[in-house]
């Protein structure tokens, strides 16, 4: 019995650990998509977030400053996607990919210049498990919560706030209108361009934070390729979760669970390389079978003045 309880504990803890960055990234993707902009740049924004968070933490010694750097650079990279798309009406696939390519090139370049290192940054100040005091006494849940850092709680708050913003406020309704039908939104006097920028910048902020979580909470450094395609998976999760923050969270937990299974199976009969492909195989299966009923906003990629 003790073994099973232990396994369950490990699965839950690592599910959460794997899920948090996915939740952040896919909520970000949801905002982008809801405002009518394809969330194809998430991977790049996440890389930027992970890398510049480490830089911020390295130069200031504070992981909080690191987070701030991560978010700011996530937004800057999202603006590349945004400006190309909104201002210059570049095809969304191209502008999204350009963000990913640029970020994947910039990070190793700066890594080389600043730290003379190929692929790995030095260790920096990172987030530790949070001391939750009395809560730790709660059976099972207490020990699970004890494993989490502050970003876990911030993520939960962001999901709730994001949900209310998107579905309960006038601004959220307007943003969704822009995503569904920018021409119609324009005719009722909604600032279409503004909401598109807002959506894409929110996606940058969320993905920057997701990247920062990878480098400053899961680890304490930047490693080239550490995002490992999570930005693309986030895009799928967002659609899978009906582009709602709550749906994105549930979808991320689902994916996080399979990601966590790796931990259990590793060292078992199945070679770890195969186990590690699980989340990606799952993504593919979801794309093929799970997205049939899911729909993205009707106005994706459309502009109000055409």
């Amino acid at each position, binding site marked *: 019995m003790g073994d099973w309880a232990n396994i369950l504990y490990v699965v839950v803890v690592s599910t959460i650990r794997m899920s948090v960055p996915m939740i952040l990234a896919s909520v970000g993707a949801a905002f982008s998509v809801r405002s009518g902009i394809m969330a194809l740049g998430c991977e790049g924004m996440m890389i930027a977030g992970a890398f510049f968070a480490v830089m911020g933490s390295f130069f200031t010694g504070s992981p909080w400053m690191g987070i701030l750097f991560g978010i700011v650079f996530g937004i800057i990279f999202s603006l590349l996607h945004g400006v190309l798309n909104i201002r210059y009406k570049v095809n969304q696939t191209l502008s999204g990919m350009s963000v990913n390519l640029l970020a994947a090139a910039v990070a190793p370049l700066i890594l080389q210049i600043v730290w003379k290192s190929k692929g790995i940054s030095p260790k920096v100040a990172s987030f530790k498990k949070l001391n939750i005091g009395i809560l730790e006494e709660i059976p099972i849940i207490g020990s699970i919560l004890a494993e989490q850092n502050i970003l876990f709680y911030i993520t939960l708050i962001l999901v709730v706030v994001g949900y*209310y913003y998107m579905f*309960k*406020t*006038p601004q959220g*309704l*307007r943003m*969704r*209108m822009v995503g*569904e*039908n920018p*021409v*119609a*939104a*324009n*005719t*009722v*006097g*909604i600032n279409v361009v503004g909401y598109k920028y807002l959506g894409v910048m929110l996606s940058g902020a969320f993905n920057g934070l997701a990247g920062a979580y990878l480098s400053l909470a899961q680890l304490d450094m930047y490693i080239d390729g550490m995002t490992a395609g999570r930005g693309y998976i986030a895009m799928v999760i967002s659609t899978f979760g009906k582009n709602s923050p709550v749906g994105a969270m549930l979808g991320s937990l689902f994916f996080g669970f399979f990601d966590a299974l790796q931990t259990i199976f590793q060292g078992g009969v199945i070679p770890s390389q195969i186990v590690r492909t699980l989340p990606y195989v799952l993504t593919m299966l979801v794309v093929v079978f799970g997205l049939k009923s899911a*729909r993205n*906003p*009707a106005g994706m990629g459309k502009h109000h003045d055409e």
Partner: protein
Amino acid sequence: MDMLQMKNISKSFPGTKALDSVDFYLKEREILSLLGENGAGKTTLMKVLYGMLHPDTGEIYYKGEQVHLKSPLDAINKGICMVHQHFMLVPAFTVMDNIIVGNEPKSGLFVDEKKAREEVKALINRFNFNINPDTRVEKLSVGEQQRVEILKALYRKADVIILDEPTAVLTPHEVDSLFVILRKLKEEGKSIVIITHKLRETMAIADRINVLRDGKMIETDIDPKKATIHSLSEMMVGRQVALGIKRPAKNIGDVAFKVEHLKVIEDGVAKIKGIDFSIRKGEILGIAGIEGNGQTQLLESLTGLNNPESMKLTLKGKEIKGSADVFLRSGIGHIPEDRLTMGLATEMTIKDNLILGYHKSPSLQRNGILSKKKIRDYSNRCKEDFNIKTPTIDVKAKSLSGGNQQKIVIARTFSHDPEVIIAAHPTRGVDVGAMEYIHSKLLDLRDEGKAVLLISADLDEVRSLSDRILVLYEGRIVSESMPGELSEVQLGLLMTGNRIDEEVEDEIREID
């Protein structure tokens, strides 16, 4: 009192002068019909009034004050709302969300859904609409969606409501209910502008008629009681128009085109249940029927676009089988049902559209490669012969009006010397001038000895052009008659599946 005035409004687009010193005024409590052909500048003028376009010159006075409308929001805030031809609704949103978005009632940071629902319900009840505010718009009929658009305007406290081609998408019954709504709005003190090119409806609803032509205001003070359909259409087109041309066939020859045992099953449902007919040289065979009774399947079968259960098709004694390409090259010309989805690639140039499907023709090639020069000459000839109104043949097809787009389709089909023309709704959504032109072209072709099959939802069109009329009902031909043999009412009865036996005819006589 004048609700609003527009003085000396001009607006140019690259290549065209859309509005040329137009003056316009609107009184309180009136329904004004802004009449004109497609491309005359009606919509442009109203978009200026709605702040969507900015005029090059001119002034706008609203309720006695000069206003500068920079965006639709300015116009909405002043009380000017527009119901667009293509509805500005989000199908995935509820009726309520569609109505309130942009002007949401708030409680704190959030939308006050309770108050919003009350307000929307009150509006719905005021007009006795049978719409649930929580239904998604995609579940509503077109007529209901239009009502949602009107509610949107009323929710924004509009005093002036502009409706762009409001009847284009409605069934006759829905048109009647729309008119009831418009009259009620007028009683409530609203001023209404209807943009339209439909003359009968204008006469039925308008208090005053304006006519625009080629960006110029021709007449602003027409009393519908004094106007006639003929006088209005002359003003719109700028010359005498022959409405409902009739030209009986002179030399009907041998059978050119023969269809036997045509059966089509789609998704397990028999859409066409065994029909036979033939068309002679120099004859127009009209097919009347309410849409959805097999017309689409019939068209697809005759042009090689589907695989019927059974069909024997002979053209001049030769059987035709195979793909759509074979059909096309055997001399079956096709004017498709919907020019936007089947007839044209709207993102491509007029020139490219004119060769679609005929690109294999040697007359357009040199040494097996498409010849730019030949295509250019051919396209310019089409432009001349078919009176396609465009600055050049190098602009995208989507930049043209519906009538001119349809002329591209017709030019393409007619200029490749087909033996048979399968024409589906050839004048749907085109203006009076283009309609007259297309009709006369069809008749010319017939007089040259071609066989024409005309499928149209417009009974007037079928009756005036056809030399013989079939009625299609639930996949069967239920009647064959000569023009004039059956009245409009009798055809209407056949189209809805009724028989016209003696009894019914007597009844009709009594009603008449």
